[in-house]
């Protein structure tokens, strides 16, 4: 067996190396254990046969293996507008907005300020309009809402401004999970309808090393019980919360995910769960979290591979450039992040639109990221390789030295064969100059203005809006 693993080796999902990760994770779970801060979670695991000592839970391998078998291999997340359902079956990669920053660079003034609910609303609207963005999330924290009502307000802000599926994070209590379930149920006509066709899903961050948040895990139990798919998202950071070697980081992330999946399957057998991760590296010069170093991208690509290994739908952290402004660095870092993770078959890439390691929102960045997302999707999409596509008869007919620009065949096939960019400039130099020699960030900004001025999301009936507002008021106390 090799003692090194290359990214291209990983394209074979059966690779021996993934079994090694699994084995090392089981060793950690059985012989080191995971700290579950939640007493409820500890009780569930203890009753099922795990060894609990204080807050540390040692989970035997057979419990984990049994749980992994129960986790569904594929499911869908539905859109309230009915036109943007996403199918998580490993056959395509969907792009979600990134979350959750606490600072925004104000679109009008350019000043860095605390994030607000209005930011979530505007970003949901922008993403609703961008074809390449499939899933919306509260991209920043609604810091101007009450603490009690924050989780439900953030979800409401999304649902009001998009008809696409929504994913939430930062839900840190069972109460907040319940609030989000009831809000979504108000839209689809009840909790049973939501269970059948969930219009949102959630993921919970673990606390590396080897620790599960109290409120987050209890929120997850609530979501799982309600039939809302829930994922577990470690962000172990090499050299700080995992050892500095990449293989160790992978084993740790994996242990954290499968320990939570085990808990879910014991509490709600057959619960829809997601295998997630946003591992990162540190910058050795400062200790700073880095999501788009080559090593972090490698780790995230392996998260996608591990989800294939377990055959569970995935949310993989992507993007989150360290750049503080939209531009060259944000472009190269995010592009290099989206490509291998998509090729590895991540179901959802989380995400697009934030800067400064997911700490800063600028409205322009998502347009730039959407362009890359569209290109990657297109690059990885199936290409027509039928006899008709080879068009040999036509080539014989036109012969050497002919032209295809004015052919009926071209007209008939061109829209399927070729795509058009959202933003990328392809004009001649003179045209580009005449049009104002606008740079890509300025073009993105113009697009944002255009969307905010004119785009309307799928409507919500007044009675539904009223029910939603009542729930928000009730939970904001």
């Amino acid at each position: 067996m090799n003692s090194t693993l290359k990214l291209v080796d990983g394209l074979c999902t059966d690779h021996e190396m993934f079994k090694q990760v699994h084995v090392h994770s089981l060793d950690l779970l059985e012989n080191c254990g995971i700290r579950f801060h939640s007493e409820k979670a500890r009780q569930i695991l203890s009753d099922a046969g795990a060894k609990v000592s204080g807050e540390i839970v040692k989970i035997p391998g057979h419990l984990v293996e049994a749980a992994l078998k129960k986790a569904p291999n594929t499911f869908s997340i539905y859109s309230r507008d009915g036109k943007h359902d996403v199918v998580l079956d490993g056959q395509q990669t969907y792009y979600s907005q990134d979350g959750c920053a606490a600072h925004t660079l104000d679109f009008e003034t350019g000043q860095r300020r605390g994030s607000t609910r209005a930011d979530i609303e505007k970003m949901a609207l922008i993403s609703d309009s961008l074809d390449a963005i499939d899933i919306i999330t509260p991209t920043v924290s609604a810091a101007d809402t009450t603490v009690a009502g924050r989780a439900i307000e953030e979800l409401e802000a999304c649902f009001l401004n998009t008809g696409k599926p929504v994913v939430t994070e930062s839900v840190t209590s069972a109460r907040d999970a319940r609030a989000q379930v009831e809000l979504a149920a108000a839209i689809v006509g009840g909790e049973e309808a939501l269970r059948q066709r969930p219009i949102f899903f959630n993921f919970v961050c673990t606390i590396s090393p080897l620790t599960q948040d109290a409120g987050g895990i209890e929120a997850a139990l609530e979501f799982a019980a309600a039939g809302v798919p829930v994922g577990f998202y470690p962000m172990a950071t090499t050299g700080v919360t995992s050892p500095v070697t990449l293989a160790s980081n992978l084993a740790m992330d994996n242990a954290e995910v499968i320990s939570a999946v085990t808990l879910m399957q014991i509490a709600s057998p057959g619960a829809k769960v997601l295998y997630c991760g946003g591992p990162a590296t540190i910058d050795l010069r400062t200790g700073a979290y880095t999501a788009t170093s080559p090593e972090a991208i490698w780790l995230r690509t392996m998260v996608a591979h591990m989800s294939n290994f377990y055959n569970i739908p995935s949310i993989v952290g992507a993007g989150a450039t360290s750049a503080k402004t939209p531009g060259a660095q944000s472009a190269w870092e995010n592009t290099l992040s989206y490509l291998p993770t998509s090729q590895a078959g991540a179901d959802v890439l989380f995400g697009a639109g934030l800067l400064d390691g997911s700490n800063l929102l600028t409205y322009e960045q998502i347009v730039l990221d959407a362009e890359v997302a569209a290109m990657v999707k297109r690059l990885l999409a199936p290409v027509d390789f039928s006899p008709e596509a080879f068009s040999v008869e036509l080539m014989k007919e036109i012969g050497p030295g002919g032209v295809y620009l004015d052919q009926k065949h071209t007209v008939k096939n061109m829209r399927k064969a070729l795509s058009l960019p959202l933003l990328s400039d392809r004009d001649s130099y003179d045209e580009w100059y005449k049009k104002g020699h606008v740079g890509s960030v300025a073009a993105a900004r113009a697009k944002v203005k255009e969307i905010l001025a004119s785009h309307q999301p799928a409507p919500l009936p007044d009675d539904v809006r009223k029910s939603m507002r009542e729930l928000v008021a009730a939970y904001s106390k």
Partner: protein
Amino acid sequence: MTGDLSQIASSLYEGDEESVSDLVQKLLNGGAAADQILQEGLIAGMDRVGKDFKDGVLFVPEVLVAARAMHAGMDILRPLLTQSSARNVGKCVIGTVKGDLHDIGKNLVKMMLEGAGFEIIDLGTDVDPQAFVEAVREHKPKLVGMSALLTTTMQNMKATIDEIGEAGLRDSTKIILGGAPVTEDYAMKCGADGYASNAAAAVDLARALTA
């Protein structure tokens, strides 16, 4: 002896705790003054570490490992040092505020403050405002550091500062804040004395406030 002193500095630079302890003890046994060992051995070594870190030659983990070697030497010297030379820059009470379980940043700040000579009282995570008040009362620290990762727990920073004030202890200490959602502006609004956006900046701020 000069050879041994410069070897202490080198061993400290390399992060070799055992060698530092052995050499410090050897010099003491030979009659050398504790103050001199401190200045020409330990501090000389740590100064080179600091310079090379600023110049990008050494990385954060190397600084922390060197600091641990420095502490090993300090533990032996401390009882023997004269008052003026004892490099105890001050006590710092540190913790993550109530409701928040995240502590990576807080732990990095703690390690780097220790490297800079502060004595840290770490209250851990999910720390009640009253626990901060009690710690200030008991330890009389020069500095209090608070950390939060969530926008929903940040408000406990102001609550804690207010309770320290209500206990009549506000003027007895300097309070600094940190964490991803925190800003300079927010820290000022809470009535803190400062804000740092990363661990190295926290050390500079701590030094400035306790000078």
